[in-house]
């Protein structure tokens, strides 16, 4: 980077680390852009935000932001974030991680963090496979999708992430795609200001792994996100997700419940 070209987001990103490691056309860069832009528009203090991430391509996100950040072990982003959220309620805890980290190895942590209503924002990038290790099928891979470990098509039913998180008790549940950048940014802004467990699923194209085997170019995958999505206000159980036919996106849940930290501090005051 030369002196004259000061990037508008240079206060929020570690510019010396860019260009990032993600593949050409990967949606994670768009998610990171929406996240830092949301922080910029809310004029939030960077010392008051903690970005936690797990393992996987999305786990790299914590290394590129200028907030306090921690890159945890596989699947354990949420236990770490729960600890921060409870001990330091003055900080905003944000988890950016992928579907494999949050729903496969970290699946139990996620449903229990949502059940306890721990105050944090979880941004989950869903690319329908395990991108970093070579695009194997995982708990979000749609039926009949070809991956290196399911060469005849996946035979497992995938999770519906928003339905799972909403039924576990999350207070804000949204699903957007990386094509819907303005909606995504607004959802992140809402999540950053919300008290309680907020969950945003972001459908993101895995261009190198998923795209190559299913004979799709990055631009075709983005067109699919534009053409096959419908913005609807429905019950999360009815928010179908099938990238080849229809993905229902939108803000599904937004309620207010006492958070785990609030109840804990109330109890502490009572017991004293």
């Amino acid at each position: 980077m030369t002196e004259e070209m000061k990037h508008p987001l240079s206060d929020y990103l570690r510019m010396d680390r860019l260009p990032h490691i993600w593949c050409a056309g990967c949606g994670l860069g768009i998610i990171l852009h929406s996240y830092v832009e949301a922080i910029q528009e809310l004029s939030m203090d960077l010392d008051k935000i903690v970005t936690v991430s797990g393992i996987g391509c999305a786990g790299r996100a914590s290394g590129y932001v200028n907030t306090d950040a921690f890159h945890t072990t596989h699947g354990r982003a949420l236990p770490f974030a729960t600890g921060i959220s409870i001990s330091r309620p003055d900080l905003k805890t944000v988890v950016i991680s992928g579907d494999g980290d949050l729903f496969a190895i970290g699946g139990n942590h996620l449903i229990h963090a949502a059940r306890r209503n721990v105050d944090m924002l979880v941004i989950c990038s869903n690319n329908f496979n395990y991108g970093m290790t070579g695009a194997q099928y995982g708990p979000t891979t749609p039926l009949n999708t070809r991956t290196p470990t399911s060469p005849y098509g996946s035979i497992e039913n995938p999770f519906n992430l928003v339905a799972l998180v909403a039924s576990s008790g999350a207070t804000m549940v949204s699903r957007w795609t990386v094509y819907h950048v303005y909606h995504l940014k607004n959802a992140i802004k809402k999540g950053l200001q919300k008290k309680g467990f907020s969950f945003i699923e972001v459908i993101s194209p895995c261009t190198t792994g998923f795209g190559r085997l299913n004979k799709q170019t990055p631009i075709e995958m983005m067109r699919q996100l534009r053409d096959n999505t419908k913005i609807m206000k429905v019950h999360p159980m009815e928010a179908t997700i099938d990238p080849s036919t229809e993905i229902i996106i939108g803000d599904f849940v937004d309620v207010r419940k006492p958070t785990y930290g609030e109840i804990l501090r109330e109890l502490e005051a009572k017991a004293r």
Partner: protein
Amino acid sequence: MAKQRIKLIKQLCKGCGYCIEFCPNNVFEKSEEITERGVTPPRIKNPDKCTLCGLCTRLCPDFALIIEEDEGDG
């Protein structure tokens, strides 16, 4: 007020082509150029058509497109 324009930071571009495909006003086009990192960055074909909507800056996964103040005579 200073004039603004769209600017491409070639060092950050990975050549995915999202800006060429999704710009509503066809500001970008493919180029023949190959940078030292082996990617083909887009070329700004119609800078006058750009309305500075900012969609490309947000859709660019590599932070390579920015809107900057135009220092020239405009």
